[in-house]
């Protein structure tokens, strides 16, 4: 039997889970938005990681085929995406129930109730197929991947098309329903969902669904459809095998801001500073300095040759310059968080943002817009301001030695990476090696999982064991 180890990083904005095997290889990653209920967030992240692990094992079992054949590659990608849609659909039904409940309790007279219910139905009718289509044809792209964000975007879109007098009541119903819906723990049956996904794919591959772009249409000629359908049939038994695989989590580590609230025994809880450092060091063993920019804090960490922390500095008293700062700026500019970085990359001119207070930065942004500065240039300045703050913490922690690894959710932002690289080279020399891994956001959870693998002595109490290792089957 294979042994697996779990690391859960409960951050202020997102919760991440990573599953590794005996060789420290990552076989599953899961991420969700952190919500008021921390254990639900951890459970969801963990479940996602287990599903992801099953898909990795599937790919692994298929061996070279998935590496070499476009057909296999596309099919697995489709399957994962439609599998996610199956989860999404169930969550959407739960949200629907909450919306109905709120509507009936919030509006006292039956006439209003009926009116609002009709609107809710029509909103749902309009956006559900759109979302389904996006999942089926992998069009969700780089947009926010969490349930709440996907649904909120569509719901808002539909509500804004209605009369303005409906805005307030419909948004109130939304606000009162989304959190209870999100905080429900939904346990999915992997096998059942994966079969449903296969059925959906059969319909997709039958060519009866209209694609949105010509490219899609071109890639699906009749012979391709036949190939895909044959593939589904040939893989059913392999998929079943992976679905039924017993998933034994030997040990786990909880980390992140919410770590104390995780249903983990005390000895399985570890500081995120140590976990980020350990994860980064494991991936890049020559790392001696780690910068982690998360949702609410920035940490500059020095590690030794073992990956153990020798000193660290964190932002104190103020969280300006962290991930939430970018979220606030995105809101102020009415653009999505993922668009910020690419837009800032187009900056042509240095605009100095003096204030790194999040709230004041909003005011500064408006003032600079007023003065005629371009959005891209202002964003460039804001991104640089974040890095200048991080540079000061790096200096306080002792500077940059050997390899430098950047972790945390903010490492996904290309403009941040640009300014950081520039300033690290300027301050510590061009020969510094800068590492940014595509899994940078998972480094804390990865470090946690790696600690779990090395710390087998700690016993997991039975009742907690169940919470931790049940994977929905």
């Amino acid at each position: 039997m294979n042994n697996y180890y779990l690391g859960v990083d409960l951050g202020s904005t997102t919760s991440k889970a990573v599953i590794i095997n005996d060789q420290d290889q990552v076989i599953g990653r899961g991420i969700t938005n952190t919500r008021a209920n921390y254990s639900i967030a951890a459970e969801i992240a963990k479940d996602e990681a287990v599903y992801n692990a099953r898909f990795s094992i599937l790919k692994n079992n298929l061996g070279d085929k998935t590496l070499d054949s476009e057909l296999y590659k596309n099919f697995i990608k489709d399957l994962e995406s439609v599998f996610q849609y199956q989860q999404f659909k169930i969550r959407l039904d739960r949200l629907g129930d909450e919306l109905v409940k709120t509507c009936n309790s919030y509006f006292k007279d039956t006439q209003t109730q009926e009116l609002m219910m009709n609107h809710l139905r029509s909103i749902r009718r309009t956006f559900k197929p759109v979302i389904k289509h996006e999942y089926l044809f992998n069009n969700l792209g780089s947009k926010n991947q969490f349930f709440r964000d996907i649904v909120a975007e569509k719901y808002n879109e539909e509500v804004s098309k209605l009369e303005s007098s409906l805005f307030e009541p419909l948004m109130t119903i939304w606000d009162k329903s989304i959190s209870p819906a999100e905080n429900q723990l939904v346990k999915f049956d992997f096998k059942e969902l994966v079969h449903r996904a296969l059925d959906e794919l059969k319909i997709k591959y039958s060519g009866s669904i209209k694609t949105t772009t010509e490219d899609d249409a071109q890639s699906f000629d009749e012979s391709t459809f036949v190939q895909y359908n044959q593939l589904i049939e040939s893989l059913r038994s392999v998929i079943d095998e992976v679905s039924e695989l017993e998933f034994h989590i030997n040990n786990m580590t909880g980390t992140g801001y919410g770590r104390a609230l995780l249903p983990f025994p005390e000895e399985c809880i570890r500081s995120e500073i140590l976990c980020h450092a350990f994860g980064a060091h494991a991936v890049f063993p020559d790392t001696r300095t780690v910068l982690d920019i998360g949702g609410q804090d920035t940490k500059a960490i020095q590690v030794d040759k073992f990956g153990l922390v020798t000193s660290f500095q964190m932002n104190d008293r103020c969280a300006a310059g962290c991930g939430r700062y970018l979220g606030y700026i995105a809101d102020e500019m009415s653009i999505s968080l993922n668009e910020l970085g690419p837009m800032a990359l187009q900056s042509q001119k240095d605009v100095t943002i003096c204030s790194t207070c999040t709230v004041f930065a909003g005011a500064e942004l408006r003032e600079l817009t007023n003065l005629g500065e371009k959005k891209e240039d202002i964003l460039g300045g804001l991104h640089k301001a974040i890095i200048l703050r991080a540079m000061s913490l790096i200096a306080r922690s002792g500077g940059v030695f050997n390899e430098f690894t950047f972790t945390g959710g903010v490492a996904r932002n290309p403009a941040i990476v640009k300014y950081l690289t520039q300033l690290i080279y300027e301050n510590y020399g061009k020969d510094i090696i800068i590492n940014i891994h595509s899994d940078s956001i998972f480094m804390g959870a990865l470090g946690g999982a790696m600690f779990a693998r090395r710390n087998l002595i700690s016993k997991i109490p039975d009742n907690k064991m169940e919470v931790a290792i049940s994977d929905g089957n």
Partner: protein
Amino acid sequence: MASPHEAIKENSMILQKEMLGNLFKELANTKFSEKKVVYTFVPGNLTELILSFDMLPVYPEINALQSGMRKKSVEYIREAEKIGFSEDVCTYVKCDIGMMLKGNIGPTGESIPPPDLLLLSYTGCFTFMKWFENLEQLYPGVPIAMLHTPYQEDGFISQEQVNYMKKQLIEDVIPKMEMVSGKKFDINRLAEMMHKSAIAEDLLVNILETAKHKPSPIDAYFAGVYYIGPIFTAFRGTQEAVDYYKTLYEEVNERLRLGLGPITPEGELKKEKFRLVVEGPPNWTNFREFWKIFYDMGAVIVASSYTKVGGVYDLGFRHDPSQPLESLGKYCMGCYTNMNLPQRVDLLSKYVKEYSADGFLINSIKSCNSFSAGQLMIMREIEQKCGVPVGFIESDLVDPRYFSYANIKNRLESYFQMLDQRKMIIEQELVNHV
């Protein structure tokens, strides 16, 4: 709390509480006793000299920290900010000024008399000067004596500096004290007191050095602040102080003999897990909570710089009855915050080594320039010289708004886990080498 050694421990605590209580009573009684009152500061204080004139000292920063511990500081700070003190000003100052504005009721609930003399005997902290300028306005016409204390810029105290201090004592401080007290300066009486100071100082050093043992019978920071109380304030040079330190030393020795750990507010610390050297003053508003984070993790502070603010006696200085004025001058210049940064690094490295510390931690207080200037450099130097993990946290003296429990706990937890891992790795390495 019934075991005999804990009961003995409480004796020294009770003794100290009584001593302080009596002092505040005596201060409240000055309108009848007609004793003169001198406001002065802890670092470089001239307690023996003040007492030799039968005057009573008041230490504003002690009042502030006491108010902080008794949760009164927030109200006083608000009062000072109301009249224009900025958020960034040292919170000892604001707490003290606020207390005076609120009627100068001391921490024990008894009123503190206004000063008859403002004695600034240590100028290493620039804020002290500004503080007294403010007090001068609050108490117009009160005589002021100022002793300009040269900083140990070159890392030692020169004979010229000692002469300069002695000259100031003779020409300015002593005449003003004679004028205020109406008494003639009596050098023999001063020397007699200094003899007692030296005895108590020897005892204090012995007590603090018991922390070199494993396990340490004392916590040299959290409990240390109680231990230094009498000697750093109104009692140095008195028989009471000698008696107090004798009692305390006996208690600590007994704990040492029995191999016991330090006493925490929740009883004896059973297992010493980490030994730390701490730099910087503690936070007073959340003192117990702050301490608890440490003892819950089994962390014992084996040496600290804060317990040297009123004298680095373990480096050998003693008040010298054969040279009373010279030794007062040396004392003023010898307090911890008057040492230059390389001296501080040397002292702290010595502590890390001699007290076999597992780590070095700084509690940085931004508004306290005397301590916080240079702390990051100190931290890096210690890390390089001693090879121990270093930690850095931030809080405040007496402003509870700047004590963020969650943040401090998060950092300390990470720090303790760092130490834990290091210990494990070092132990493994040792096993591998055997």
